[in-house]
């Protein structure tokens, strides 16, 4: 609202200041865990284990990072996450963009049925076990391709893009058709450029969900050389404290279970922080495009 502070009464000013302070507190509470983890990751193992780290690193050291970054498994999982993210996102787009365009066209025979066919998968799914058994029957266990293809289509994203396509005035399609363009050309030369914001939004949603995906990677992948970062992180966190050999070496080391965990967390968050400013531009609008339809 374009109202300035000097139009405010005394009570209004107090209210405005109070909300600003509350917002500040919530923001600080949101931010604090990240600061805390970063501080732990740079602290000495002894200080961290004793619970001395509050806000800034104590006895600052890079030892935990050295331990993490010299682990070849960390790099393998990082590379795998990269492959799953890029490959999976491209695959999703290849399925979703043409599908959304076809579903947005009134000429399509059985359009209502096909829309229902896709949307139904949002409300009912067979569950973990049948999905897992199906993946096994398809021979997609422990496979790069399985992870990428198995989660390629997301009905929510597809419907989001379909809604966006439907909102484009049909005269664009008609003008292009009269100019002699076929549907592939209309989609590629007209609709995709016009829908850039929506496509950027679903691309970013895909990237984030791929980057963060953990459960199915954990269930479907057995080989250590295929697991993504999130699964590596989970293994490491779970194993560190149980790993007798590792615990035994800690006595003489400048790092601890806590600092190593924190260091891995920081390494996994950094890429998200790098893309986050780009995502932010789109997701606020994107989240409103999808789902709810008049």
């Amino acid at each position, binding site marked *: 609202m374009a109202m300035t502070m000097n139009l405010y009464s005394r009570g209004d000013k107090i209210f405005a200041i109070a909300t600003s302070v509350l917002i500040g507190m919530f923001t600080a509470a949101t931010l604090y*865990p990240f600061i805390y983890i970063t501080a732990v990751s740079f602290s000495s193992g002894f200080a961290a284990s004793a619970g001395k780290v509050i806000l800034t690193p104590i006895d600052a050291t890079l030892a935990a990072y050295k331990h993490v970054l010299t682990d070849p498994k960390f790099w393998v999982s990082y590379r795998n996450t990269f492959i799953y993210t890029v490959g999976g996102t491209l695959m999703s787009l290849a399925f*979703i963009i043409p599908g959304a365009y076809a579903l947005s066209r009134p000429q399509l025979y059985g359009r209502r049925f096909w829309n229902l066919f896709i949307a139904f998968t949002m409300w009912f799914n067979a569950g973990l076990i049948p999905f897992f058994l199906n993946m096994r029957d398809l021979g997609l266990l422990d496979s790069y391709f399985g992870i990428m293809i198995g989660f390629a289509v997301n009905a929510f994203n597809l419907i989001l893009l379909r809604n966006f396509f439907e909102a484009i005035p049909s005269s664009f399609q008609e003008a292009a058709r009269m100019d002699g363009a076929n*549907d592939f050309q209309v989609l590629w030369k007209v609709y995709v450029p016009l829908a850039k914001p929506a496509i950027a939004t679903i691309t970013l949603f895909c990237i984030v969900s791929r980057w*963060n995906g953990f459960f199915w990677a954990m269930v479907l992948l057995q080989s250590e050389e295929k697991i993504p970062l999130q699964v590596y992180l989970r293994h490491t966190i779970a194993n560190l404290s149980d790993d007798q050999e590792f615990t035994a070496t800690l006595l003489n080391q400048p790092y601890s279970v806590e600092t190593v965990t924190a260091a891995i967390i920081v390494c996994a968050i950094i890429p998200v922080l790098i893309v986050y400013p780009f995502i932010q531009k789109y997701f606020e609008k994107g989240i409103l495009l999808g789902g709810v339809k008049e």
Partner: protein
Amino acid sequence: MTAKSVGNAANNTASGTPDGTVEYAAPALTLGDKLSRAVDHFRNEWQLYVMLAPAVIWCIVFLYKPMYGLQIAFKDYSIFRGVAASPWIGLEHFETLFGNDQFIRAVFNTIKISALNLLFGFPAPIILALMFNEVLHAGYKRFAQTIVYLPHFISTVIIAGIVITAFSPTAGIVNTILGWFGADSIYFLTKPEWFRPIFVGTGIWQEAGFGSIVFLAAIAGVNPSLYESAVVDGASRWQMMWKITIPSILPTIIIMLIIRIGNIMEVSFELIILLYQPATYSTADVVNTFVYRQGLQSGQYDMAAAAGLFNAAVAFVLVVAANSLSRRYSRTSLW
């Protein structure tokens, strides 16, 4: 120039109806006509079907085929015989499940955790959005929004890692702070009574900010002249919030509430898997974690599928009911 054609009124294929609209009496199409129209249609529009096919085939292979596989919930499934050849055993798995204390406990835990999520997690983004709306400094508001949206994009594993570290009995910041007040250190993640507060709190920390986007958009859609006329009438900001903002966004609030109720069976079990341990099963174990342990960890696929089917069926009924409620209330629905 051709002759004037004046008032060439409705020809004989049209017949007037009382309200003035004209109804088209379609000539009976022969099979040949229909066929030739269909051939015409596919000759012109075949590309649409080529575009649609990959998504549809994908849905069949990865989502609908598992629905066919759901029949193992009613079968004595063996990996070697496969889905189709395994013998039917009727509702035996369901009978076993309903006699299983762990399953019953998981059902109730699911409902309890969801109820807590609803009670505390649902108002949080609304309150946050209302507060954001009162912040005057645009830059400060922008900065705060950027921060509070961020946790939504952090993976469950990292969230769990942070929680485990922060609540650790010796090293964690929470116990350090408790220590300042002279309290004894608590190993939170092994205490059943602490699991739900930690889980629900983590959920609010992660999602409240992102969830406020929908409500902020609703607030942005309120007609500004309502506020202007309220200012002229001498209303305070506090009064405007209660008399204008909240009533205006009430439809959005109700729709979001209905959606939440529809999703009551969907607890984010990934986070539970990462945070719970046998000591906290009594409060933490939900249906999906039960399915995960029984099926994927212990290999009792058929019984786990039955438990999953129970969950999915209840969820489906809830979602459909919620949607029809939403449609009735607001003419807005999810599909």
